[in-house]
């Protein structure tokens, strides 16, 4: 039997969480070391999965299937394709760097890491699930610890509000999606939740048109689709740094990915029917999100709204239903995940030193934190789609997809690039290179070595993918072909 690598990846965090909870609460260092060990292990395996995925063969690989509740057609069924393999790697990376930069958490680190890892299990699970029931199962696992992580360790001013808002939004979303999913289960007549079987269920066009919005929006809420996006900036801002990284970096991808896997792949006719107006919503995401980010004065809100804008590009890529658009969206999920994790890490580090996030009050951070500054610049360049960085590799095909489907949307969406450039440059100029305010002089310190490791790792990935897209693009392309097959080569 083949080594069940995906299962090991999925369950490593939760087992680690249990072990961590067994460590006495006053042994904080041991807790951290255990967390780092587990994260390193999971990262190592996800790197291994990524690089041993056979792009030529494409399709689902590392598949494992065990009957779970056979009488209801539920099985434990996991596997990755070209679309999800990069996301598994993304999760591994965010988890690893998240642990590194949370080293300094002193308030109940044991519980913090345990919840973070439960969340990680949920996220890994969704990305590899090939069974609809399993997908929901892991999805809920991912949403629930978020509430506690924000409400307990979050920013004191808004944490209860934000945690509540976020959780309610996401639960409503998943309930709506669940309705759609159950509809599919019964309508298929196959008596199974196996998504590969459901792909071939041949739902009638009328059924697909009705059910698709439920499934798509149910998940896309977590992807931050307009007008259901406003839980996300609040959530990002209130969450502690590592959770923001997870939240924007990975969790939003969860929504987009599930919308693709369950919505577009299982209900292709419905997708074709509805996407012509859904793409307008994503356009609002992209442009309006960028404008809102531009006018924020809170550093973290800027990044929060920039996520809304960039996730809009992912959903927009999906909505084109073209090869290029889907390819770009796939790469953008990975690229944005790394980029925004990097951003939130930077914001957290600056805040830890200055205790303010008001952009006008900040300045001169580069004098004490050179690596942090460079990391933010790299992230910023990715964000504005600068060629040579992964953002360009992702956004370019999305726009090509637009030209293939709705050319005029490309004309409007492109405005976001210049707005993004404007707010990113403004932040770089003010926060990092501006004049250092008197009260900070002598009070700021550079970040820890572990923080630097995390930042360098994330920045390097953004640059590598940008310079050498071949490391990721053919894999995503093989995943896209899988989707196109279902769309009937649309």
């Amino acid at each position: 039997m083949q080594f069940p690598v995906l299962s090991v990846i999925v369950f490593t965090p939760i087992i680690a969480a249990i072990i961590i909870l067994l460590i006495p609460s006053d042994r904080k260092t041991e807790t951290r070391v255990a967390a780092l060990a587990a994260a390193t292990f999971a990262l190592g395996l996800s790197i291994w999965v990524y690089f041993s995925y056979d792009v030529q063969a494409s399709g689902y690989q590392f598949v494992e299937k065990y009957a779970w509740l056979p009488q209801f057609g539920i099985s434990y069924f996991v596997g990755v394709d070209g679309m999800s393999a990069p996301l598994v790697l993304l999760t591994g990376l965010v988890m690893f760097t998240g642990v590194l930069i949370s080293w300094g958490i002193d308030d109940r680190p044991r519980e913090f890491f345990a919840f973070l890892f439960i969340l990680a299990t949920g996220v890994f699970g969704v990305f590899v699930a090939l069974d609809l029931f399993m997908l929901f199962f892991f999805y809920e696992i991912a949403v629930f610890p978020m509430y506690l992580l924000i409400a307990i360790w979050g920013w004191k001013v808004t944490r209860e509000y934000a945690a509540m808002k976020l959780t309610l939004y996401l639960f409503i979303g998943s309930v709506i999606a669940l309705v759609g999913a159950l509809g599919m289960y019964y309508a298929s007549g196959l008596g199974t939740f196996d998504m590969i079987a459901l792909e071939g269920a041949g739902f009638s066009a009328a059924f697909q048109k009705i059910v698709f919005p439920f499934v798509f929006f149910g998940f896309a809420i977590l992807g931050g689709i307009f007008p259901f996006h406003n839980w996300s900036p609040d959530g990002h801002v209130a969450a502690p740094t590592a959770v923001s990284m997870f939240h924007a970096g990975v969790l939003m991808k969860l929504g987009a990915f599930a919308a693709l896997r369950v919505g577009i792949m299982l209900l292709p006719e419905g997708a074709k029917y509805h996407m012509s107006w859904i793409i307008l919503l994503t356009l609002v995401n992209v442009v309006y999100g960028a404008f809102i980010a531009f006018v924020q004065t809170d550093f973290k809100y800027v990044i929060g709204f920039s996520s809304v804008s960039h996730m809009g590009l992912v959903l927009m890529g999906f909505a084109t239903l073209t090869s290029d658009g889907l390819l770009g969206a796939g790469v953008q999920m990975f690229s944005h995940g790394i980029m925004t994790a990097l951003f939130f890490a930077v914001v957290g580090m600056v805040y830890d030193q200055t205790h303010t996030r008001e952009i006008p009050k900040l300045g001169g951070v580069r004098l004490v934190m050179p690596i942090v500054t460079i990391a933010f610049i790299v992230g910023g360049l990715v964000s504005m789609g600068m060629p040579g960085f992964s953002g360009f590799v992702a956004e370019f095909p999305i726009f090509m997809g637009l030209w293939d489907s709705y050319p005029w949307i490309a004309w409007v969406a492109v405005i976001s690039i210049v707005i993004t450039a404007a707010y990113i440059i403004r932040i770089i100029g003010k926060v990092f290179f501006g004049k250092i305010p008197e009260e900070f002089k002598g009070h700021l310190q550079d970040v820890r070595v572990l923080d630097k490791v995390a930042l360098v790792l994330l920045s390097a990935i953004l640059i590598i993918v940008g310079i050498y897209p071949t490391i990721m693009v053919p894999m995503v392309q093989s995943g896209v072909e899988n989707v196109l097959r279902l769309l009937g080569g649309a």
Partner: protein
Amino acid sequence: MEFITEHLLSLILFTPVLSAVVLMFIAGDQDKLIRWVALGLSLIPLALSIFLWVNFNSDQAGFQFQEQYTWYSPINASYHVGVDGISLTMVLLTTLLTPLSILASFTIKDRVKTYMVLFFLLEMGMLGVFLSLDLLIFFVFWEFGLVPMYFLINQWGSEKDTRKIFGREINARTYASYKFMIYTIAGSLGLLLAIQMIGVVTGTFDLLELYRVWPSISEGTLFGVPVVTVKAFAFWAFVVAFAIKVPVWPFHTWLPDAHTEAPTAGSMILAGVLLKLGAYGFLRFVLPLYPEESHRYALVLGFLAVMGIIWGAFSAYGQTDFKRLVAYSSVSHMGFVVLGIAAAAYAINTQDAAIALEGAVLQMFNHGLSAAAMFFLVGVLYERTHTRNLNEYGGLFPLIPVYGGILIFTSMASLGLPGLNGFISEFLVVRGTWPIFTLFTILSTIGLLFTGAYILKGIMGVLHGPLNKDWIGHVSEINPREIFVIAPLMVLMLWIGVWPAWILNVIDKAVIWFYGIY
């Protein structure tokens, strides 16, 4: 050896990046070491491009030293580089000006390492534009070059100046760098869209293929719109992006700010090479990809070029800031490049067009030399006097005779004095343009007249008139390092002025082959 010849272009292109990496391993406080290592490393691309020049066969048609590797397979973009006579000239200009600029930057004391690293990245970006034979790769380098330039202006620009924007006093270099960045990014949006559109329509980004395919698409509709309209839009998208970079009047307003606020070496590269990227864009992309549109809109372009020539010269004459004067002179001189291109676009298959294009390419090279030299000389003076105001200098000739001689020599080259390089190229442009755009050519001579006026104004303000006594003992003669910077430029100016055949021969054959003239 074989490895070097087979990968010559990639070596030229990526040596600067490797140099930047090498620099990163030197301790940040070793300023002197960093400077010399940077200078040494920057000579490698120069040596390689001289090697390239020697081995380049100008009689052979087509792009030489081509290399092609997969880069972004799903959308058919590849890393494809190659040179012809036009890009070869520009590569030589870039690799020549970079070491000189680095030598000119030896007075930089603040964060020397970062500064040099940015300079190398900038060099790579510029070389990439000249070498690319793939539309997407071209765009990558085109945009990437902005980043180091932004930081060079923003961090090492002149510290003192302030500007009032919306009633708030801000640092002029902050303003200038922001304007430069946003202006250029916004200008490139149309180019980005047009490139994407071309990619979707033709399914390739390879330039050699696009030269065949794209111009021949002339009938039917694209995206439900007549092809003619789509192409006209795409044409203007390209033109605007390149026109901003050149800059063509009225898109030039970022230039005086950026040039004035940039550090000396930054201005040298900005004027010497960066402006050429725009003109090169016209030559390499606009003319061959849009022959019909170029012909149709050539008059508009020619008009803008003439406006640039005259307006730039007038504005230069009106300045009291020496550096701003030189900056506006770039607008005027680059106008001749665009005028030559516009005339050639109007009548591409004539001998006059060939002459105009040759003049334009040579003018790009010449302006690269003289503008870099002028900005350097302004910088030399500024380092001693800490002012750029022409009214505050006065009668410095007796104090600094050698500098004075060099300044006059360089100014004369810029002015277009026969025997120096500027004359040759401007003559060629005017000669080629005359039969095609007679009226524009006549008007452009007004610009030439005022060139004389502002150049003399500059010389007079600095060197002649009553001696400002404050400078006695403060203004020292140009030093050997500075002479080392300027000497190669002066040699080339004289050389091209006296015997231009060595470079014109290469340009001539490339132009005739590339545009299929005769």
